[in-house]
């Protein structure tokens, strides 16, 4: 084998891994978009706790069946020649991603702890993992943009403006405002139904500073993954969108702060926060609700 062939094979192997990584990040992003509202529902935690093992196994089988059907339906539009075995492998992967992400987020929110019984933990993972895994399977179609022409025109216009160095400051501010608005709308869309529930105060009471730091890190990472790393069809659009915070890191941090602000507004609106409450309570509740709000905010920015 010549040196160039070896180099080429090495590069191809890298592409294979890159594809898998893309599938993984995209799946995780879709899972969070679809599954996060149910993660914040205590009835689901309880149902998971007292469900009998045979029911849990049946539920796992049903979840797999649903994922398989969804993947099959999706492949009709994407690759009609896809074999059943390929769909089977894809479905197993979607289920596994859902299980891992659900376990991670339940540990993060302290719904699974060292002292949690195995039966309870398994019930929570299986029940919460169901929408998560479906979200993973649906990730490819979840945020498809059908209005490509409008985007292309806009992107071309932006490109021309940039190349000529003629982008006016008003345009820059308008684009920034559009991003902030989209983050707000997305955050409200996902977190508005969670904000008035008792789950927020329950989760806040159960958390601790190290877990809050982990929640901040997870919120930022998920937001970044959804918008910049997942390879959703509108991701290129994000990269060509102009605004004050268009650098991926800047935008992720900015949108997180906007989502936290939106969370505080929602909590105030539903009187879950009062001005007599200590600032630490405000901060903790905002961070807990900030996680689903950030996921929504990221989706909102992809949708503009």
């Amino acid at each position: 084998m010549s040196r160039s062939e070896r180099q080429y094979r090495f590069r191809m192997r890298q592409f294979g891994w890159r594809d898998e990584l893309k599938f993984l990040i995209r799946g995780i992003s879709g899972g969070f978009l679809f599954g996060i509202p149910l993660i914040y529902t205590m009835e689901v935690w309880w149902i998971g706790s007292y469900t009998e093992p045979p029911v849990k196994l049946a539920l796992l089988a049903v979840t797999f069946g649903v994922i398989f059907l969804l993947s099959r339906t999706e492949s009709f539009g994407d690759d009609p020649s896809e074999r059943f075995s390929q769909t089977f492998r894809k479905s197993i992967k979607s289920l596994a991603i859902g299980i891992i992400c659900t376990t991670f987020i339940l540990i993060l929110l302290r719904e699974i702890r060292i002292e949690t019984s195995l039966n309870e933990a398994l019930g929570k993972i299986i029940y919460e993992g169901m929408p998560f895994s479906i979200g993973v399977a649906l990730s490819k179609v979840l945020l498809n943009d059908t209005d490509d022409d409008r985007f292309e025109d806009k992107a071309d216009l932006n490109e021309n403006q940039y190349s000529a160095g003629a982008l006016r400051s008003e345009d820059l501010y308008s684009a920034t405002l559009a991003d902030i608005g989209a983050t707000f709308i997305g955050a409200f869309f996902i977190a508005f139904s969670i904000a008035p529930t008792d789950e927020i105060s329950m989760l806040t009471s159960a958390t601790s500073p190290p877990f809050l730091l982990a929640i901040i890190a997870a919120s930022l990472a998920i937001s970044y993954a959804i918008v910049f790393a997942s390879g959703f069809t509108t991701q290129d659009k994000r990269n060509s969108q102009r605004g004050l915070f268009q650098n991926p890191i800047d935008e992720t941090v900015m949108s997180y702060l906007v989502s936290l602000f939106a969370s505080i507004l929602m909590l105030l609106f539903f009187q879950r926060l009062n001005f007599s409450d200590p600032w630490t309570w405000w901060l903790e509740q905002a961070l807990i609700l900030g996680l689903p709000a950030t996921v929504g905010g990221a989706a909102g920015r992809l949708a503009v």
Partner: protein
Amino acid sequence: MTQISKIRSKSKRKSRTFAEKVTFVFSVLVVSILVSLVLIVWIFKGERPPVLEIARNGEIRAVNGQFYVPFVLTNEGGENVENVQVVGDLEIDGKTEESGEQSMDFLSAGEREEGAFIFHRNPEDGRVMLRVASYKVP
């Protein structure tokens, strides 16, 4: 098809298969572990009714004239319970001087919950009686 393009195509297929294979094996492992754990719980669970145990958990804390008596409640049975009522009495010289009540929403089989009763009189002057008063089957 030229020789090099054949190699490229074959190499691409091989590398993708390898990456896919690794993630697939890992995924099968994750799902298998989950299924195995559910089966283990199923086999060892049996038909044991709830057994609720309450015990003191750590030292008494005295803060601003109040005495905090920590406790731990464990469900050692095989079934889950709801609305567990826990009662704590402080007896001094054979008389119940203070009494406290606590309710736990949910306690699954094997789960433990912690809490504390707060008394105004020093528990070390008498004795603290902790007991589980009632529960409901979900």
